[in-house]
């Protein structure tokens, strides 16, 4: 092969710079991101090499590898040069998607988001069906909090139980809350991570306008992905409110002695840190505290945990894409949970629960229950 002359792809370099990816040029090619990336455990892919090609504007980003990234931030948390790798990847995805070169499945997801305001394709008028039979009221001024449900808890039959569990807990603790019902739309996280900034903005602006209209000041999110978008992306569009993840609220309610829980015998439980709760927002202790307040629960830590935690594989749009069984990070996580002898694997994110439960069913050597923290707490309400 003869060497090709370098012809920098100026247009791409300009776009990347505009999309806030200029920390890319600080990269000194140490490869720490590659070996830290969970994909390196399951297949050959070099994050460093993608950055190299982007740095010199010599292409190489148009292949499938660009769509692998789960935006878990394991790499950025360690990068010695402070390169914001997930942002670089997001910017590159925008560029490629604008040319219509993203995977077909993601085109469908964008279509759902645009037409039905959720990535799953559920009907907008069925958004609040998850709450059937429960007395969940529309949010009005004077209530303690707005519960932001999110698309997965609203439409996915497995995750609906998480939202229902949370309703029972909040009722038990005497927290007054409401939802936006069918007026809630997707928080926009999927659009943002797969590189459609415009779509994100239109969804976010719609929610922000509803918050404003209904006088929302304090939001509690079920999904860490909603939490991150509401907390760090919405303010960039001018929205202002307080937002927390439900595990933070539960930890506070426990502190205030507003929740009474029954013992669950003597169970070894392990907790999986969702990337968007942990690495993105530094919430490591509250979910653990909630679990440990269930009498009988013995918390065992998997290796790795907290800031080093292994991604479930669901972020960054991956939840919508097919991953062959031998490449699923959640399979590795099940093995790690088994290594510490856990009988319950708890987490606090819809994607994590979906992926881990799937892997537990297919790969666990002995039964390993996967539960969302909210489900576990609701089950132990005294």
């Amino acid at each position: 092969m003869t060497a090709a002359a370098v012809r920098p792809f100026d247009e791409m370099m300009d776009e990347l710079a505009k999309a806030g990816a200029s920390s890319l040029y600080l990269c000194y090619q140490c490869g720490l991101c590659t070996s830290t990336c969970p994909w390196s455990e399951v297949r050959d892919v070099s994050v460093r090499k993608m950055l190299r090609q982007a740095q010199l504007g010599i292409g190489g980003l148009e292949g499938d590898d660009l769509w692998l990234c789960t935006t878990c931030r394991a790499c950025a948390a360690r990068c010695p040069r402070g390169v914001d790798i997930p942002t670089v990847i997001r910017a590159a995805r925008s560029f490629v998607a604008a040319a219509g070169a993203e995977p077909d499945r993601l085109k469908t997801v964008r279509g759902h988001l645009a037409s039905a305001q959720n990535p799953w394709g559920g009907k907008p008028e069925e958004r609040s069906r998850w709450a059937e039979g429960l007395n969940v009221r529309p949010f009005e001024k004077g209530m303690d909090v707005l519960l932001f449900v999110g698309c997965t808890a609203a439409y996915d039959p497995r995750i609906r139980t998480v939202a229902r569990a949370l309703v029972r807990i909040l009722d038990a603790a005497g927290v007054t809350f409401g939802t936006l019902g069918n007026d809630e739309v997707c928080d926009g996280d999927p659009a943002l991570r797969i590189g459609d900034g415009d779509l994100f903005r239109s969804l976010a602006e719609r929610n922000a306008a509803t918050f404003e209209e209904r006088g929302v000041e304090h939001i509690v999110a079920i999904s860490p992905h909603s939490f991150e978008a509401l907390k760090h992306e919405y303010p960039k569009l001018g929205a202002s409110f307080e937002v927390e993840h439900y595990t933070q609220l539960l930890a506070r309610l426990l502190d205030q002695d507003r929740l009474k829980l029954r013992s669950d015998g003597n169970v070894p439980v392990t907790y999986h840190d969702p990337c968007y709760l942990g690495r993105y927002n530094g919430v490591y202790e509250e979910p653990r505290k909630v679990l440990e307040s269930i009498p009988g629960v013995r918390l065992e830590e998997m290796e790795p945990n907290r800031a080093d935690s292994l991604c479930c594989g669901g972020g960054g749009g991956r939840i919508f894409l097919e991953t062959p069984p031998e490449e699923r990070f959640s399979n590795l996580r099940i093995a790690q949970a088994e290594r510490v002898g856990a009988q319950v694997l708890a987490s606090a994110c819809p994607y994590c629960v979906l992926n881990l439960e799937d892997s537990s069913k297919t790969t666990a050597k002995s039964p390993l229950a996967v539960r969302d923290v909210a489900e576990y707490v609701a089950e132990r309400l005294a």
Partner: protein
Amino acid sequence: MTGGTRKIGVFICHCGGNISDVVDVNAVREFAAQQDEVVASTDFRFMCSNQGQARLQETIKEKGLDGVVVACCTPKMYEDMFRGSAKEAGMNPYLLEIANVREQCAYAHRHEPEQATEKAKALVAAQVAKVRNLRPLDVKTAPIHDGVAVIGAGIAGIHAALLLGNAGHKVTLIEKSPTIGGNMARFDKTFPTLDCAMCTLSPKMNDVFNHPNVDLMTYAEVKDAVRAPGRFTLTVVQKPRYVTDACIGCNRCTEACPVSGPKSPIKVESEWNLGLSPRKAIYLPFSQALPQQWTLDADHCYYFQRNHTCGICAKVCPADAIDFTQRPEEVQVEVGAVVVATGYRPFDASQIPQYGFGKYADVYHGLQVERLLSSTGPTNGKLLKKDGTPPQSVGIIHCVGSRDEKYRSYCSRVCCMASLKYAHLIRERTGARVYNFYMDMRANGKGYEEFYQRVASEQVGFVRGKPTRVTDQATAPEEEGKLTIVVEDTLAGVVLRVPVDMVVLSTAMDPEDVDGLLASLKLDKSPDGFVKEYHLKINPTETAVKGIFVAGCAQSPKDITDTIAQAGAAAMSASMFLGSGSMTLNPLVAEVNPDLCRACTRCSEVCEFDAVRVDPEALVAIVDETSCEGCGKCTVVCPTGAITVRQFTKTQIAASIDALAPKAVAP
């Protein structure tokens, strides 16, 4: 021109066009000539040239000037020089002021020449008004004390102390640990020559120890420093050794001491061996330590910790050298100059938990490996794992903490070569496979690239990549019982898992913890935490404090070659400073009118430089003229106007302001 009492000259500089291309210098000259008490007004192409200064001096003499305004560039450039010329011509130099018409007029208003000219006139008028109100100042000089203190007795401090002693100065060398030698004394060999470290260091240690002009204080620390003109008074705490200089070095006490014995509840690790071996409560750090005087560590001694039980050392000592009654002693050391040579310490590798330091037994940091390779170390120079067997493979990770914005952004400069040194010594002594994990190989000293070549030829593996982790979790039979290093080989573009028996972390160099010392000497740190030099490029051995110099790794990470070079330069600078005999004091600092001072202490409360204090007996504020920066903060809070900064009194400042804004401005 009206006849006044002062004779002021105004000199307007063209700055070769920099000023005169924008400012109409003729107009400014004519304007100046009209000011009260101005007897000469002239302009010149370059006031800073020899002819310009000659013109200044001639005019001073001819017209008998007792005030000068030079309208030129910033006072930072040539104020001192013009004052010097004025002095030579017989005028008091502090009657000269600069009007900055270059930066503040010509540069700032390049495109508005008319306004620039008007502003230049106003600035000249303001300075003329100020000069009218100036009074001549005496320049005080203070004799410089002829002694010098060197703080830290590593290779930098030892070398500087020797040179200063040889030059005839009286040196006090202060070392906080029980022995001199510093980190270099821990090494077996030094790169790139692989000389025996102690063979080069030991003679210097002995020389300094025996030098008639060097007074050595070991196990001693500077607690406080007071600055006065030409003199520093250091309060040095001599920590109790509980062993007198009668000690003959027989080691019987150490042999008898029960501490760290197999059944002893009190255990302590050797600082010298960086935790790799136990030590007794009474000890000598290593066999060539100097002085050869044992030290008793009261914090880990049964006599002190368990109610005077034990005391065995005193019983076995043939020289009667043990004295349990010693107490810390404070000694005042007066000197004229100080050399700071406090060196470095290793970055704490447990801050990067992924590398397993403190978690896996066979993960070591660089200085520990120096001890493992040293014939005076815990394994007598044999490289052994914790289980006592030699490793068959070793991984050396470069840049641990260095060049990493999450820890230390700087390059520690010696780790590449130190890592090559380990690679060579380990291969030579054990035949083990060695892998170096590096990002960039920095071999920029004399003989370094050649050393890199030599080590590479010894079949050392080089993997370009920063490892993500060291783990004991095996995923393949070859990894069982090993530590596996996970890394992207960035040259091959594949992720490798490299199983090894031992991991060496080439940790960053951190500055020694000297915050207290720097605070009492009023020295600053650079953003990286090392002592701040006067100027990074052209004055790396002086500091912002006159009379204080810095050498070695106290200033920045460096190898022994550079340490020696800088220590020599610091000694030379200190010697010249001491040799000048006296220093002139800047008179433009605060002074107190004792008649007005009410001893309210408000000035001392606001002064950021601790330069003013109220004498409790005389009940009057006293300014330390070497510490005062002339910032004027105190003058604002003083209720009676007792404290003023010379040439910045209220009348002097008011005169300038009136000249700048002659008409009252409507509110």
